[in-house]
């Protein structure tokens, strides 16, 4: 069994490496640029901590170095020399077409869906089909949230969600500890 800190340590290590790599020459970056750098390096670090095992991690990295991406150079700098980027070689072709995540998708209210189905056809108003529709809509939203989610079917979607949630939690924990510690130190 891995040590309890393994995921967080990996993430922290890679995050700092990434931050180091994209250290810019100009000393005064705007605050938004810094935030972008921090977030991007954190995301890439979390994704690479999975070492290409999960689909979402590969899709995240692939999306970062996609051609049309504005911060592509930044992501490439973070990822380092091409020799270290093994996980991205396994990226399926379809994942390269993945676009940015839709941040806040409105979840359709159950009432609206039911009303719509009843209007459409009386036969479609059976409870099973309504439930299918509801679940399908939510699956769609979940797919849009998880990087590379459009290419996952039912079972793998939930597995990827599990893994993604765990990684996100680790990321949030580490970042929060860092922020709080720095705040505490600042107050002293």
């Amino acid at each position: 069994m891995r040590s309890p800190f393994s995921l967080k340590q990996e993430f922290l290590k890679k995050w700092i490496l990434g931050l180091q790599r994209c250290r810019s020459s100009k000393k005064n970056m705007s605050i938004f640029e810094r935030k972008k750098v921090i977030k991007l390096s954190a995301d890439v670090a979390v994704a690479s901590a999975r070492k290409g095992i999960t689909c979402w991690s590969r899709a995240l990295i692939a999306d970062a170095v996609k051609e049309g991406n504005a911060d592509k150079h930044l992501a490439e700098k973070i990822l380092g020399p091409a020799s270290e980027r093994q996980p991205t070689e396994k990226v399926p072709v379809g994942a390269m077409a993945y676009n940015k995540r839709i941040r806040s998708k409105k979840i359709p209210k159950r009432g609206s869906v039911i009303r719509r189905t009843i209007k459409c056809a009386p036969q479609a108003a059976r409870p099973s089909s309504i439930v299918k529709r509801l679940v399908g809509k939510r699956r769609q939203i979940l797919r849009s949230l998880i990087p590379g989610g459009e290419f996952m079917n039912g079972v793998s979607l939930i597995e990827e969600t599990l893994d993604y949630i765990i990684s996100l939690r680790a990321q949030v924990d580490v970042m929060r500890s860092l922020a709080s510690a720095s705040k505490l130190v600042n107050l002293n």
Partner: protein
Amino acid sequence: MEKDKAFMSEELKNRTTTRQQQPAWNPCGFMTEMSANELNCGTEQVGNYFFNPNWDNSMDQSDPFESALSSMVSSPAASNVGSGENVMMRELIGRLGNICNSKDIITNSTNVSCYSTPLNSPPFSTDPGFAERAARFSCFGGLNDPLRDSLKLSGHVNGSQTINNSTLSRSSSPENAESGVSKEESSVSEQLPGGNTKKRKSIPRGKAKETPSPATVDAKVAAENNDESNAKRSKQNGTVKASNKEDSKPAEPPKDYIHVRARRGQATDSHSLAERVRREKISERMKFLQDLVPGCNKVTGKAVMLDEIINYVQSLQRQVEFLSMKLSTVNPRMDVNMETLLSKDMFQSRGLLPHTVYSMEPTFPFGYQPQQGLALNNGIANTTSQQGFQLPQVNGFIDGNPQVGSIWEDDLQSIVQMGFGQNQAQCYQGSIAPGQVKIEL
């Protein structure tokens, strides 16, 4: 920002409480061995190391964020409750063993067979309900990898008839702490085929999808009984949705347990079987998700659960955004202190205590050596100057040179690099000296 802070502290509180309720459950990344239990312990310990020294200082500040964090830190360690539950589980299983009145454990062979060839049918035909219950026992007995096992099996079991095999293999999981327990369970299950069907039939029928409540062992047993019967029923009925046509059958004919059960009145062709297996897998994963996402235990039904999951993922993503924005506003003045904190975090598991900056003397009462702290600072200053930055003296740096600006990350990396270069060193102080000497030259 304040709203987000409050939201985060709220969520922290929620997560603390859920962690206290579900200490023994371990979801895995599906091919890794990471577990939420580890995460729980990890965060608590990390939080400890960050905040315990500042306990007295921080409690005065009446910051809801801090208090939430300190409450998270002070929450009971997961392992204690987990071991308590283990004890209760063993008692319960001991009682069950007494019921069946015989203790010959011939399950070694079955366990071995389950390990080696999961596709083979087990040599004994037990009641699958009890086998599932046994699996649940071992799952919930703490420090187990139900997800990994089930996922490992899903690779083997694809579309085949061995759902019961999967549950049996799950019961014989390779966890050392639980292997004895699972063996006992399998032996008990072996000896109680008849009594089990009776027990199962008498379980009151609930909804098709009921969530196991991990609160107490007794509740667990009852919940697991319900859960197994419902899982059985859902397996039979083939769908987990809250639809009207899910009338559970009163008595399941004790068919051959190697194959997937065919629902009475439904065609047993391969399509529907495969579909049922797929749905069963999906519902399994959803159960794990339920345990992972806080506040999902009371929720039944796929749609609402997916709602919760979506909300949770969105909130986590928003938190990442917020935290990265917060970190980007970090004042570069106290970078040196942050570096030591980070290095402390890095070397936690190796038991190396960091050497704090001398200016932090009052706040970090745990072991530090001021001389080493000074040496550390000099090392930092020297490395950063080596990297081509005009870094003033250490004192000036701490006093807040505004020109330092956004290079705090570089200081971070410098110390981390030093640390990584010497991460195999047994003694931190011993390793810093040669590095420092080298740099000064």
